[in-house]
């Protein structure tokens, strides 16, 4: 039983990491810009497709047709040679193998640019509009983004293999002195969890220890007063939107080996991430992170057979149930400040 609980706990961590990263970005945007961004899930999805695009570029092939040979269904045989491997040899092969982590290098500038473009081009005009209109315009943006991805990459999920070295499972049980083989945990999930911790730590350190971060924290707390002190906060907020979209994008990149990305990925995560943000407390960064992990772990536990035997269907609704209870009992969420959109 202890094994089972430990396993479910571990399993909640990587999912929780993804939730936390998405909620973190969502909160950065909400806390600084005051915008309820329904397109945030789409940014996660775009990040995932950065990984897809990167791999597709790496695996571009030249096709030559050999008319002398036939393939099994009787057509002339096509001989495919990958370009990158042709150019770089072994290094090319390694690059292809590690394409998902390496594509972070592509995702950072792409996501930052996209985020800044969205903010300057569209979101900026909605700071003073009601939340309902923000929801609607970003929802529209999300639809547009996912449809563009669909028309470029198709409707089907595109599996992204993880590096061969990280394909196995780690024997966590043996590490902590239990019988080997009892508690195994996929390496990549462990990597994802650590990666999410790293990003979260990085974002927090940035906000904590830099002047820029101090200004942003101040802006999240009281945007008006920061303006009174002569600081043009909106320019920094544009940067924050870029940062939030990078965070969401990287969360998406690294998630691809766990779940083959499709154009609909963003919408699947969107509802969830809002619930996470609300549970954590709107506008609270530590709240978003804590709630992300909490809900990931709760969701994991709710899927245990023993739990489902007591409350049938709990695995399907646990997230929403928690959201409802929190909203009704403590509307500012776990760590939210009093008065933030409270009513």
């Amino acid at each position, binding site marked *: 039983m202890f094994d*089972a609980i430990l396993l479910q706990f571990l399993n909640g961590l990587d999912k929780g990491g993804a939730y936390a990263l998405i909620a973190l970005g969502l909160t950065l945007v909400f806390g600084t810009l005051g915008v309820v961004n329904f397109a945030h899930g789409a940014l996660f999805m775009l990040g995932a497709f950065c990984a897809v695009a990167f791999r597709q570029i790496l695996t571009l092939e030249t096709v030559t047709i050999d008319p002398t040979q036939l393939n099994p269904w009787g057509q002339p045989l096509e001989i495919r040679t990958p370009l990158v491997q042709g150019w770089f040899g072994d290094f090319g092969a390694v690059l292809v193998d590690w394409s998902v982590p390496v594509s972070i290098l592509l995702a950072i500038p792409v996501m930052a640019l996209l985020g800044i473009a969205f903010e300057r081009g569209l979101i900026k005009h909605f700071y003073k509009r009601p939340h309902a209109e923000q929801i609607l315009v970003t929802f529209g943006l999300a639809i547009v983004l996912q449809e563009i991805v669909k028309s470029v990459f198709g409707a089907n999920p595109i599996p992204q293999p993880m590096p061969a070295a990280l394909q196995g499972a780690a024997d966590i049980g043996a590490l902590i002195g239990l019988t080997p083989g009892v508690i195994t945990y996929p390496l990549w999930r462990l990597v994802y969890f650590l990666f999410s911790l790293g990003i979260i730590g990085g974002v927090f350190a940035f906000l904590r220890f830099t002047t820029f971060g101090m200004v942003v924290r101040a802006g999240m707390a009281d945007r008006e007063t920061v303006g009174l002190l002569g600081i043009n906060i909106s320019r920094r907020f544009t940067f924050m939107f870029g940062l939030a979209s990078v965070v969401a994008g990287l969360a998406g990149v690294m998630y691809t080996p766990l779940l083959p990305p499709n154009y609909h990925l963003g919408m699947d995560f969107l509802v969830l991430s809002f619930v996470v943000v609300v549970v954590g407390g709107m506008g609270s960064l530590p709240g978003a992170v804590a709630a992300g992990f909490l809900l990931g772990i709760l969701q994991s536990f709710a899927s245990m057979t023993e739990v489902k035997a007591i409350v049938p269907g709990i695995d399907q609704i646990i997230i929403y149930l928690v959201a409802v209870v929190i909203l009704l009992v403590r509307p500012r969420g776990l760590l939210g400040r009093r008065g933030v959109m409270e009513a």
Partner: protein
Amino acid sequence: MSHTKVFGRRSVLRGGLAGILATSTMPLFFTRGAYAQEFCNAPTGDTVTFGFNLPLTGAYAEEGADEQKAYELAVKHLNGEGDGGLINTLKPTVLKGNGLLGKKVVFVTGDTATKADQARASATRMIERDGAIMITGGSSSSEAIAVQGLCQEMGVIFMAGLTHSNDTTGKDKKRYGFRHFFNAYMSGIALGPELAKAYGKDRRAYHLTADYTWGWTQEESMRQATEALGWQTAQAVKTPLGAGDFSQYLTPVLNSGADVLILNHYGNDMVNSLTQAVQFGMRDKQVNGKQFEIVVPLFSELMAKGAGPAIKGIFGTSNWHWALPDEGSKAFTKSFGAEYGSPPSQAAHTAYVQAILYADAVERAGTFYPPAVIKALEDFEFDGAGNGPTLYRGADHQCFKNVLVVRGNESPTSQYDVLNVVREVPREEVTYDPAIFGGDLGPAEPVPLCA
């Protein structure tokens, strides 16, 4: 632009576009003439419209895309274009590749999004708006059952595409619905002995089951088959369709004491759950002193491709495989490969065969009148469409033919060479009594008049 696909004269789409582009009032050329016809969408012009209802998005989208290719190929062959494909090998057949009863075959398509509700809406649209004489397609059993019910109400024949639930031709069978694909029960019968041979008779199985009609019947059939071998069932857990991340359902397997995991998943769900199970190190585990094994009772080459190396050595069943050596299979693979550059999947095969069989039945009946076509299909015995001699059983509209037990290829030579056929289980072994699943076909006549 090749004009191989022509659309029905009555297709109002052109009118729709013109209406938008010109915003002019065009003559009311959309007239149904419903009162003149004796049955739904009786073809009056020189064309006849097939309705292809396909999951172009959603969990089974990949299958849908392959089905669409196959249907378009079938229409070509029926109209005498291309190399004729199965028309040359089907025995008996009266098809000559000159259209259908002298009319050119045209088609419309609709996206079902792998959802029953949408599938039904899309089928309704094709029947009411586009005048489809026959609906075919789908790659989920819930879609098939929903659309089959609709077709019964509308009096339009439904040739099910990829549907493997026992219910489609069991509890939910309909007079107007026909299935060429095999079902979960047959998978169980075919797969059981092979599993016993490979993994022994003392095993504990853990089922993860897609939570809908197909998953339920597949789980039931697999339990029956494996428990008959002496296996125990440790646990059977239902997972939501399209869950994506199955890890939270997989972790409990690790310490359940089970030594076999049976994945009653299909499409992307199966690709995800299988690769994730492998990521959890399940295939390297030893449980109860035995090697832990994973079984995927129903899989296709498309899924095998998606799952990549995870599929190696995994047992399952298939309706058909492109490498089968018979004439029909060879002919179909050849013309499909020539057209699209890849071998057809089992979904493509069943879709193609269904379209051809419907056409053949119409030709034999000499009319599009559905009750006559139904009569022509019922208890029709044919060969040369792959899987050996085949019977379209009249009692439940289920095809009976050989079933393939397949196994993931350990050393594929190409990206399509992912499955090996372990055994072709003869039709006699998988034939069962239609009474075991109950259900009622309902009447063929009077033919309901759609709108």
